[in-house]
């Protein structure tokens, strides 16, 4: 279908484009900006004055819960949530049940996603069988089946020899290893940031050293084996400092932060609010400020939702027993916009962290507005306020610390491959 989007502010972070202009789509791709190509007849015209058109968002971590946890969420429900959030590509970590450690499972998941024909799904394969940190997966086979990288999700590889070998093996094929830096021993049993709040509430703590010790190990391994590593969910100021040094040194490392970590701290746990139970834990205001600044200056490359739908039975429990994770696909854009506003970051740069920067890490298509690029688009009203509530969320997971809060920025249309899939 040929579509013309008229009157919108087009923002392409990749090229720095930011102007009001018409956008013409044909055959699933961007056909032209400004004047329509000769002979172009629009079958649909979207009047978008006052709205922003940007490349569809790329979420570096969204759990869709399939296979294995269909009672928490399904591909159907979470794809809807993604599109409602303007997300057109998502990477899903391998911590499903069974774990994504076999090519057959990856093919099945890709097939399920293709038959739904909504957002693009890019699975991350397991780095080790069952995420147990013992035996390497068939990475080349998994890559052939569609995996774009190899991850341990929230599990650590406790055995450093296995970690080193997994990195060497991945490096042989040029794959990126995705690691959430958290020392499994130092974080054992911990449910909240180790500090005055956890001390007062009597919650067992995850110290900052759990992150920094893991980062030191990873950087030293990268130095020797040259494997490209993507660090998932940096959570501390000290972690940011180490990352900054590593990048200055030229190590092939990238990093992301979860969008909720740009806003909340351990103080938000309040009276044991299990909606604030996340991995890694919310840390102090100083840590949060460092994360915000690092995302602004590019030390942290991208921001993701770390979307994790959790069912009531697993969340409505005392803090320490509640399953970690919050729903986030639909809050990714508004929460990134409010970070940008608070931080004084221009809109173009903020959207960069959700599009082209994420695409570069994922190695996937999309993330830019250019003639010939896939017409994956997010069209949003940056000024529209809305209140987060269970009924305003499409995700099957309704647990988020932002519930009942007013946020700014509402997605009006989402297009995937030139089709309007959400409006």
């Amino acid at each position: 279908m040929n579509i013309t989007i008229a009157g919108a502010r087009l923002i392409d972070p990749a090229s720095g484009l930011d102007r009001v202009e018409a956008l013409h789509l044909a055959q699933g791709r961007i056909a032209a900006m400004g004047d329509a190509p000769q002979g172009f007849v629009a079958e649909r015209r979207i009047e978008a004055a006052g709205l922003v058109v940007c490349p569809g968002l790329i979420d570096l971590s969204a759990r869709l819960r399939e296979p294995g946890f269909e009672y928490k969420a399904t591909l159907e429900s979470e794809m809807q949530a993604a599109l409602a959030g303007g997300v057109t590509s998502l990477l899903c970590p391998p911590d499903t049940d069974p774990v994504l450690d076999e090519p057959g499972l990856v093919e099945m998941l890709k097939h399920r996603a293709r038959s739904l024909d909504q957002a693009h799904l890019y699975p991350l394969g397991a780095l080790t069988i069952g995420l147990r940190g013992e035996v390497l997966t068939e990475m080349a086979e998994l890559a052939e089946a569609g995996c774009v990288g190899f991850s341990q999700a929230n599990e650590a590889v406790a055995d450093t020899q296995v970690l080193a070998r997994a990195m060497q093996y991945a490096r042989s094929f040029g794959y990126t290893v995705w690691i959430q830096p958290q020392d499994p021993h130092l974080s054992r049993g911990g449910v909240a940031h180790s500090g005055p709040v956890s001390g007062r509430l009597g919650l067992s703590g995850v110290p900052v050293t759990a992150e920094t010790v893991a980062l030191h190990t990873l950087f030293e391994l990268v130095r020797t084996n040259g494997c490209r590593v993507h660090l998932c969910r940096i959570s501390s100021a000290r972690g940011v400092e180490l990352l900054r040094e590593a990048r200055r040194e030229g190590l092939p490392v990238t990093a992301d932060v979860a969008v909720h970590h740009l806003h909340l701290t351990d103080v938000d746990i309040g009276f044991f609010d299990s909606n604030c139970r996340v991995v890694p834990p919310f840390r102090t205001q100083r840590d949060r400020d460092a994360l915000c600044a690092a995302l602004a200056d590019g030390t942290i490359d991208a921001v993701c939702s770390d979307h994790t739908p959790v069912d009531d039975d697993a969340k409505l429990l005392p803090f320490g027993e509640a399953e970690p994770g919050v729903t986030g696909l639909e809050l990714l854009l508004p929460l990134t916009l409010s970070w940008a506003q608070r931080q004084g970051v221009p809109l173009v740069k903020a959207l960069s962290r959700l599009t082209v920067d994420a695409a570069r890490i994922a190695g996937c298509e999309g993330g830019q507005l250019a003639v010939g690029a896939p017409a994956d688009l997010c069209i949003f009203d940056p000024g529209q306020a809305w209140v987060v509530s269970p009924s305003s969320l499409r995700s099957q997971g309704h647990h988020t610390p932002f519930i009942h809060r007013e946020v700014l920025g509402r997605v009006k249309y989402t297009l995937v491959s030139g089709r309007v899939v959400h409006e």
Partner: protein
Amino acid sequence: MRHPQLNEHGELRHLLTIDGLPRDVITHILDTAASFLEVSDRAVKKVPLLRGKSVFNLFFENSTRTRTTFEIAATRLSADVVNLDVRTSSTSKGESLLDTIDNLAAMNADMFVVRHAQSGAPFMIAQHVGPGLHVINAGDGRHAHPTQGLLDMYTIRHFKKDLTNLRVAVVGDILHSRVARSDIQALTTLGVPEVRAIGPLTLLPPGLKEMGVQTYTDMREGLRGVDVIIMLRLQNERMRGALLPSAQEYFKHYGLTEDKLALAAPDAIVMHPGPMNRGVEIESAVADGRQSVILSQVTFGIAVRMAVMSILAGTR
């Protein structure tokens, strides 16, 4: 955000923690307890304040002693007491905590006395129950044991009168102790100028400084000149998690002995929340010595729990 233990008028509806409890509320509870103390000395040990009310003891973690003191307190207020060993009933059959609470609330309970192994569980229950119900935290994880904190304050006030010129030391496994947290919060709220925590660094939690506490790793130094010593129970499982090497070494450095006690003020009192491990954290000569007020704590505990129950029952 309103504290979940207060109602919209700022009155105490539940007792969940000492943290954030205003000084005058604590003082009111202690004063009320004083008036109940003589009830226990009467031939007929009962007052009719809670007649017709049902108090449910919900112990998700077992403790015969604490449960018994609550039971005695409720009975002396003429309430009906139902003891539920929740551990062995519904929850082990897979029923969720809130389902259990809903079912018991439907039996027209007026008050839940809750003990749970998870920090914060009583908050969840208090935020879930309907308006007519009161929740008392009888110990949650490492977080709080507010009635123990209050009875410890009662004991200190009884023996020391003025709290605003005292030095108090809390000794032992503070990391895992809900009693220590409630005691520290009560002491600082009541204006005790110097609260010390004594223990090896593996047993001192983060954030003690923010709670207004000075820490000591050398017990002899920490005890010097103190007026009150609160000893904490050391659990055997602490030897397993690489927190301590042995009970023997612990006793040598952090056990309260007569010679260490001699470093404190001559009229210092020795307290312990019980049950004691003689020879691990405290030597018998001290536990049974003239400075020990450990059994007074137990007696005062009944009066303090009666006071808490009667005050809550009077709040909408």
